């Protein structure tokens, strides 16, 4: 599974508790009300475990990590 799909599966199932949610790559996660600040930490830990990449707390902002695509690009750049 590619990074985007892995992220989407994790977010819809573990955070939104709705695996059927049609999450798009460019959909706003934080400002769209899908993920809150507390769940962002869960995403960080998932990324570290799954992809071996740590995204620092201060990098996890609306500007840098508001979509699956944003997060995937950050991961790709560091792998």
């Amino acid at each position, binding site marked *: 599974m590619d990074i985007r799909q892995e992220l989407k599966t994790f977010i819809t199932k573990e955070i939104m508790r*709705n695996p059927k949610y049609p999450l798009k790559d460019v959909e706003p996660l934080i400002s769209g009300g899908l993920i809150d600040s507390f*769940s962002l930490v869960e995403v960080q830990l998932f990324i570290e475990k799954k992809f071996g990449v740590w995204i620092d707390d201060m990098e996890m902002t609306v500007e840098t990590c508001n979509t699956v695509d944003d997060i995937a690009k950050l991961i790709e750049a560091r792998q």
Partner: protein
Amino acid sequence: MTAPSTTHVPIRIDHPLPETLNAQIRYLLDTQPEATALYFVTPDGKGEQTISTRAFFEHAAEVARALRQNGIQAGDLVVLVLEHSLDVLYSFWGAILLGAVPSIFPFLTEKLDPDRYFESLHALVERSGVRLIITYPALYDRLNTVLADVAGMLPILGTDRLTTGGNPTEFWDYAPTAESTAFLQHSSGSTGLQKGVMLSHRAVLNQLAGYSTAIRLQANDVICSWLPLYHDMGLIAGFIMPLMQGIPLVLMSPFHWVRAPHILLHAIQKYRGTLCWLPNFAYNLLATRVRDVQLENLDLSSMRAFINCSEPVRADSHQIFQEKYTPYGLTSNALTVSYAMAENTFAVTQSGMDGPQKYDRIRRLPFQEQNRAMPAAGDDEWALVVVSCGKPIPNCEVRVVDGDKKPLPERQIGEIALRSNSMLTGYYHQAEISAQALYEGWYLTGDLGYMVEGELYVTGRKKDLIIVGGKNIYPQDIEAIVSQIDGVKDGRTVAFGVFNEKLGTEDIAVIAEITQDDEETQGRIQREARQRIVQATDVNARFVHLVGPKWLIKTSSGKIARNANREKFLQEMAAEGLL
């Protein structure tokens, strides 16, 4: 006045109280002007500032002078629309120096819908007769447009116009009386019903005296806080108490903290913090979401007490926090609890200061079926653990009453009522609500609990309310928001809280009946519901559950039954492994 002793804080119950907060400012400036009032902490350390008592109140005096120049007088309501920053701290005390009444309004966040946000500000300004707003120059035009039609408003004051110079001594003549309103705190209420809690100087000083005694506050204490200031816990415990007691406050922004929770722990270590107030979810967050690599060389041994407050307290949250931080010097008696509310200025009870923190194991069935909290046998695997909130603080009485407001015996669950000398004067511009909340001098809290050996145990609440990370959310508001979405059947929505074990707080769940069930429509409604909820409340809905006709359970009178639908939903989610 005498110089402060090296061990005692100046405001305490066995000591004459100052008349007003203004008198206390004057006393502190006379006795300890160079003492550090504030360490303002930032995550990267670059914006870190150390501010003395004298510098702090000189900045406040600059604001007071600017307010005076703009026509503000004693008793005028001044609303602060500012981020968690030095600006908001100085502005608050600037208004107090002048005898005006400050009130902190939550700042616009990137998640809130600006139109809706400004509408609620407009409603507040109109309803409460706000005289002036202090905000950033960037918001100046927008606020002027939004508030153009409100009568009696003075010009909006930008933070760029506060640096006029000033000295607190210019304002000693403005001293209010002990009965004057010192400031407004916001109490929760569903949309349109938020209440401004009026607190007099005397009530606030009585609270500081009583609560400081309960927590044994000493001159060498250091308070660390990341809490927002528009909430009683942050405003009183994490701002007004340390400043008025002349002990250092280590303050950081809630927005910084939530992104990097470990900065609180490192600030405690750096400044030898001794006291810290946290809502329950923060214990889970700090226990489970901080990586060990962020904790290298951490030393928390200076901490006298973490005080769990403002949402239901869970024994397992204390346990995981204790386990995680014992290796970092957290002592075994440092986890305590306070039950508090804005209407009592802040604290009502405090546990764990003169003995160990108590946990009451009770039998499940008498609790659920007879409103009784009966001690459970040691081997009762169904027992529930209720965390003690401790004894009432000095000058505060607590009792548990039945439906007829009659006191109940120990271990009988009923509504918690309180009486004290730090109660609100009333709700601002809402006299009729003020009268409703009191019964023969007792304030009825709407919370449920029981007493054992003089200690209070809180078990739930009468009112329908969801508390998410210490923030009160009314299900009626969520239901109304989702009901307006195209494709949701009007009035066919129900919202409630679902406790999240991992986070240590409640999640919002909302169920909506939809008229078309194709995937595309479902996706759109899901998306819109989550977006609108966060824009209106700044809190996310974890569960958005769309259902067809006949799913929702109604009462015999045709109303949607919140509890029955909650049970049905929980069963479905559990069956699908999604809880």
